[in-house]
């Protein structure tokens, strides 16, 4: 293939490695040898020395070394670099030949084997006559060797073998064939590597030594050659720093050569090779900027070196290859860890390569076309089948003077090259390079560059006549340019796409591209638009359109026959084109008059159309399809007369539609999409999803709104309907008819907790007809706190308190029909168990017959009222425990009476009637025989308090628990005339204590001065033990007394002692009774102090009255 002429030779592109030949190994039949060879070849990872090994037979003929030149005086070089040279040193001339020979130190036939080995070495040496290649011998031994110095036989025999083979001791190795083969092999190859290094070093010295014989006039080519060779040997030696240095020298030398038309190709070829090596090494040394700088310099130097004009395409091909191989090197370096950036990535080089390939194609096309056949004999044929030197012409190899030796030969040679160039699949090359570039730009976030390259690929496919692929690519990127609003570029792409569509006779594509090229985004001139419109009309009439300009004439005739076939085909002449994503030449906007319509109003819809093409367009049909298909029949216009449906360019045409919505669509949206039809021979429907608009209209509307915001009212003065300011309304909501009834609520907030709260509802009809099936839904508005649903109960029956089963919302309570003007009242009772605000909903629904535009419809209407009602507690209850002396108790003594006091404090804004109250005791017993409520029929105003007092006693407990529940307090109450409500208050728990000794006194309620006052103390032993009690009465100023002043007594368990004293008051008024001191020696925790609380402290003593005043005393 002709393209391969420009490929870089593989020996240039590979990494040079030292070449070591292994001989004496029979890898086919000898298993041991096979294992040794495998150990050399297998697992050559980066950590092993870079050597390329080859197994050669012992008598292998190495390339002959030419006799050394003694003088360069009469030598004229024929070219820069021989084509075989690199391969020779990579693969043919070894740096070291290793002879493998099986021989143990204690071999019985040592003498014979030693001489056989020496012969083999001699054969190799002879074959390498004149070369500096080293020879080494490896003895394959079965036994593990002893440590050096211990085996005397071995050292003696080794030196004798070295002598016999003329080897230095460093070139003789022993390879014991034991378990650690790989380890031995690695040591061996490291030794080989050192020998190879020495070899390449001497080769470099040898080449350098030629320099002194050269002169600058005749040996210019040799300067380049020698520098190249030194650099290449340095690479083989793995001395890449020096290699780079020599390649750089070689590069500058190559540009110092006298360049003329005959050797231009040779110079460029070598410059390209050396440049490749430099860039490669720079990337390898991780200095990518050096590589880029070198490549730029290279391109700058070579850009203008075109050579002969007839072969200018060769230069373009070479340039393309330069860029491509640099791109590949760059890409390779990235794969090895280099980071590239957006503005410097391999993509640019591939792109340039593609560019030059395009130029190459162009240059070929520009050549004058001679109708000449390929010359015979083939001037490109050489005897060897290849070239001797890189970059030379096959018909004049080795020729180095300025003028060609034979003008006629030159001419046929050029002709042959030109003819060969015609067979090159240019488009294929260009597309491959472009797609490489696309991949790179995609990676480096250059979407626009990617699109641009895809356009180029599309164009190249177009040139290659692969229209399907071209259209696929162009179609793909078109929308990018459309959304970015680059109309100039979009138009250019569309023009190419239209050509493709024409040449393929793809009717639908053709129509789409025509439509867009006629549209407002197209930057085509009026006359071009006119031509396209004419073609579009032809296609619509099912005729063959005229050819697009700039199409290849042969393709045009093929296309014409395709079109004729297409036209002849009947059927499939109907297309629907979704134009939303294009910018078609007809614009459409649709709007509902309002975002919502009541079901009893006709729905109004406007469709605006506008054409952007140069000539008027006629339409056949305008249809609107709505989300409910049943409405579609009302929104169709079909042309009856011609003029009614034609669009004049630049003028907006408006179509009005109106229809009546169905009652079942209440609450639904109606959406619109517009279809335009034009059927003449071929029928094309343009369809807009939603309410019209296209790829560009959003931005236009935005711009229009910006300018109208600025100019404000100025817009209204414009006489014409402004297209850009038309706002689409793509859907409308159908909402229910406005109800003509009034719903009123009357109630008196706040509601009291647990009360049956009455809300009265008045519904009055203002309808002209009968409101039928009036229904009420009342109760808690849904969507509030979920707990409210549990604590709210709604009922219509206010006569008794509803229970917890009543729902929170009463649905659909039928209220019957309502005649015009009629009024209806209902009471709804609400019981709120918890406090806080609540929203109540009252929803009155009905249906009514009505007429819209002559159509009878049944409308459902409803009216909602809500009320927020706060619930408060009616009263607060507080409870306390006190002793019989009205002292607050924190503990209650067992079996000793105490008092329970309740207070009811009204917080209701209205008077509360307390019907009754009662206690429900659990463990306590009442100390009074009958519990009659003290609050019966008490009326509490706001802030008033009602109290009650109960005397209770706690019986001895069986359980050890000293905390007991008291019970409940029940209050029956009502407000105004509502039913009785019972509120239950749980009484607090009390802590019990038991007392070992209980003492109480019987004494009259008052005394009288100087009258005897008998007091009897009862002392009860409540323990199971006999208690000894010491009692003493302290003297008091206010009393004299008789009785035991100090006594000690014993009380049996559970029994009682009585002590009787006669007190004799001496003073009137509240007097402290004589203090009783009691102590219990057996029960030290109980002392006078703890017992004294049971005893009265004071008594009221009346003054001594006169006998006559008895009546007045009694009155007091």
């Amino acid at each position, binding site marked *: 293939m002709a393209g391969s002429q420009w490929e870089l030779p593989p020996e240039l592109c590979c990494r040079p490695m030292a070449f070591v030949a292994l001989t004496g190994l029979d890898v086919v039949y000898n298993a041991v040898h096979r294992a040794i060879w495998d150990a050399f070849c297998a697992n050559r990872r980066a950590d092993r020395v870079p050597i390329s090994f080859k197994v050669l037979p012992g008598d292998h003929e190495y390339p002959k070394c030419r006799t050394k030149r003694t003088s360069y005086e009469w030598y004229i070089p024929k070219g820069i670099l021989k084509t075989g040279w690199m391969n020779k040193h990579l693969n043919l001339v070894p740096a070291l030949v290793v002879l493998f020979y099986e021989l143990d130190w204690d071999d019985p036939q040592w003498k014979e084997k030693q001489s056989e080995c020496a012969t083999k070495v001699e054969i190799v040496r002879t074959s390498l006559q004149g070369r500096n290649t080293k020879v080494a011998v490896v003895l394959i031994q079965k036994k593990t060797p002893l440590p050096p110095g211990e085996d005397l036989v071995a050292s003696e025999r080794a030196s004798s073998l070295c002598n016999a083979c003329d080897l230095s001791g460093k070139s003789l190795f022993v390879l014991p064939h034991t378990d650690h083969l790989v380890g031995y092999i690695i040591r061996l190859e490291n030794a080989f590597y050192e020998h190879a290094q020495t070899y390449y070093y001497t080769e470099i010295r040898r080449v350098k030594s030629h320099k002194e014989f050269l002169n600058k006039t005749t040996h210019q080519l040799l300067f380049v050659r020698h520098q190249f060779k030194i650099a290449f040997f340095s690479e083989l030696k793995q001395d890449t720093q020096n290699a780079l240095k020599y390649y750089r020298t070689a590069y500058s030398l190559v540009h110092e050569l006298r360049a003329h038309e005959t050797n231009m190709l040779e110079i460029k070829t070598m410059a390209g090779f050396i440049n490749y090596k430099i860039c490669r090494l720079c990337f390898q040394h991780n200095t990518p900027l050096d590589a880029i700088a070198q490549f730029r310099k290279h391109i700058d130097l070579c850009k203008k070196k075109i050579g002969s004009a007839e072969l200018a395409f060769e230069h373009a091909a070479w340039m393309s290859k330069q860029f491509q191989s640099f791109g590949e090197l760059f890409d390779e370096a990235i794969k090895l860890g280099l980071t590239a950036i*957006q*503005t*410097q990535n391999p993509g*640019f080089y591939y792109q340039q390569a593609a560019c030059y390939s395009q130029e190459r194609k162009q240059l070929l096309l520009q050549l004058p076309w001679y109708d000449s056949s390929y010359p015979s004999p083939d001037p490109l044929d050489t005897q060897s089948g290849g070239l001797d030197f890189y970059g030379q012409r096959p018909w004049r190899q080795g020729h180095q003077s300025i003028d060609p030796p034979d003008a006629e030969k030159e001419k046929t040679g050029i002709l042959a090259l030109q003819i060969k160039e015609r067979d090159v699949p240019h488009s294929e090359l260009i597309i491959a390079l472009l797609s490489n570039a696309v991949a790179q*730009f995609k990676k480096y*976030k*250059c*979407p*626009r*560059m990617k699109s*641009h390259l895809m*356009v180029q690929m599309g164009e190249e496919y177009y040139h290659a006549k692969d229209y399907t692929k071209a259209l696929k690519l162009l179609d793909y990127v078109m929308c990018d*340019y459309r959304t*970015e*609003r*680059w109309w*100039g*570029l979009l138009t*250019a792409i569309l023009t190419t796409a239209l050509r493709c569509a024409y040449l393929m006779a793809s009717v639908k594509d053709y129509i789409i591209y025509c439509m867009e090229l006629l549209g407002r985004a197209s930057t085509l001139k009026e006359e071009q638009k006119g031509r396209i419109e004419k073609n579009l009309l032809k296609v619509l009439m099912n005729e063959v359109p005229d050819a697009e300009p700039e199409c290849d004439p042969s393709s045009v005739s093929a296309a014409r026959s395709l079109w004729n076939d297409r036209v002849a085909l009947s059927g499939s002449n109907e297309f629907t084109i979704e134009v939303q994503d294009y910018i078609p030449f007809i614009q459409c906007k649709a709007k509902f008059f309002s975002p919502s319509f009541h079901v009893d109003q006709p729905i109004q819809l406007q469709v605006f159309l506008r054409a952007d093409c140069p000539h008027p367009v006629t339409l056949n049909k305008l249809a609107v399809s709505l989300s409910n298909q049943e409405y579609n029949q009302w929104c169709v216009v079909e042309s009856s007369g011609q003029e009614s449906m034609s669009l004049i360019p630049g003028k907006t045409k408006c179509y009005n539609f109106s229809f009546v919505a169905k009652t079942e669509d209440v609450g639904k949206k109606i959406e619109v999409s517009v279809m335009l039809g034009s059927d003449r021979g071929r029928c094309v429907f343009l369809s807009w999803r939603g309410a019209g608009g296209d790829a560009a209209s959003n*931005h236009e509307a*935005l*711009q229009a709104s*910006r*300018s109208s915001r*600025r100019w404000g009212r100025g817009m209204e003065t414009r006489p014409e309907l402004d297209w850009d300011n038309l706002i689409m309304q793509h859907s409308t909501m159908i909402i229910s008819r406005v109800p003509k009834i009034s719903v009123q609520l009357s109630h008196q907030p706040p509601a009291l907790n647990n009360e049956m709260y009455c809300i009265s509802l008045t519904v009055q009809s203002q309808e002209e007809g009968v409101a039928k099936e009036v229904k009420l839904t009342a109760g808690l508005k849904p969507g509030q706190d979920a707990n409210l649903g549990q604590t709210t109960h709604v009922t219509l029956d206010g006569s008794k308190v509803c229970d917890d089963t009543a729902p929170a919302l009463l649905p659909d309570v039928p209220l019957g029909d309502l005649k015009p003007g009629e009024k209806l009242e209902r009471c709804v009772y609400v019981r709120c168990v918890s406090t806080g605000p609540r929203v109540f909903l009252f929803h009155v629904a009905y249906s009514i017959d009505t007429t819209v535009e002559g159509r009878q419809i049944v409308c459902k209407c409803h009216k909602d009222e809500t009320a927020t009602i706060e619930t408060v507690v009616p009263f607060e209850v507080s409870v306390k425990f006190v002793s019989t002396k009205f002292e607050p108790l924190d503990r209650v003594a067992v079996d000793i009476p105490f008092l329970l006091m309740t207070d009811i404090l009204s917080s209701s804004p209205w008077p509360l009637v307390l019907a009754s109250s009662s206690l429900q005791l659990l463990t306590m017993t009442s100390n009074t025989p009958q519990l009659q409520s003290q609050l019966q029929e008490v009326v509490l105003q706001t802030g008033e308090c009602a109290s009650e007092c109960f005397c209770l006693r706690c019986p001895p407990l069986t359980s050890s628990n000293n905390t007991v529940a008291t019970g409940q307090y029940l209050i029956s109450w009502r407000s105004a005339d509502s039913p009785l409500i019972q509120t239950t208050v749980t009484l607090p728990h009390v802590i019990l204590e038991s007392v070992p000794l209980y003492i109480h006194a019987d004494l009259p309620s008052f005394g009288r001065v100087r009258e005897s006052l008998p007091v009897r103390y009862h002392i009860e032993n409540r323990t199971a033990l006999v208690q000894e009690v010491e009692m003493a009465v302290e003297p008091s100023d206010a009393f004299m007394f008789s009785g035991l002043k100090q006594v000690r007594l014993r009380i049996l368990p559970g029994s009682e002692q009585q002590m009787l004293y006669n007190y004799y008051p001496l003073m009137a008024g509240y007097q402290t009774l004589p203090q009783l001191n009691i102590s219990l020696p057996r029960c030290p925790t109980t002392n006078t102090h703890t017992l004294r609380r049971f005893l009265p402290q004071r008594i009221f003593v009346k003054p001594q009255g006169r006998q006559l005043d008895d009546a007045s005393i009694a009155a007091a």
Partner: protein
Amino acid sequence: MAVCIAVIAKENYPLYIRSVPTQNELKFHYTVHTSLDVVEEKISAVGKSLGDQRELYLGLLYPTEDYKMFRKLHNSFTDVMCNPFHNPGDTIQSKAFDGIVSGMMVQTG
């Protein structure tokens, strides 16, 4: 001297684009358009690093020869934007701007 001058809206569409008439106009349009990749990247980088926000010149956008005349053009563009009759976002149709651009272009003929 410039061969092509373009002013691009922040939504990346051209507000103004002109090239030397004799040159390949379409090629320049593509070049300007593809340069926007780099502009987009650079602008997003500025937002991140909070570098010198006042430096309006973004530098080289495309590996090609550069033409440094940004300030002059920007001043003229500011004048266009200050025109109360200009609607930002619309394409630029201004004689003064045209004049400045023509002065910066390669003189042909």
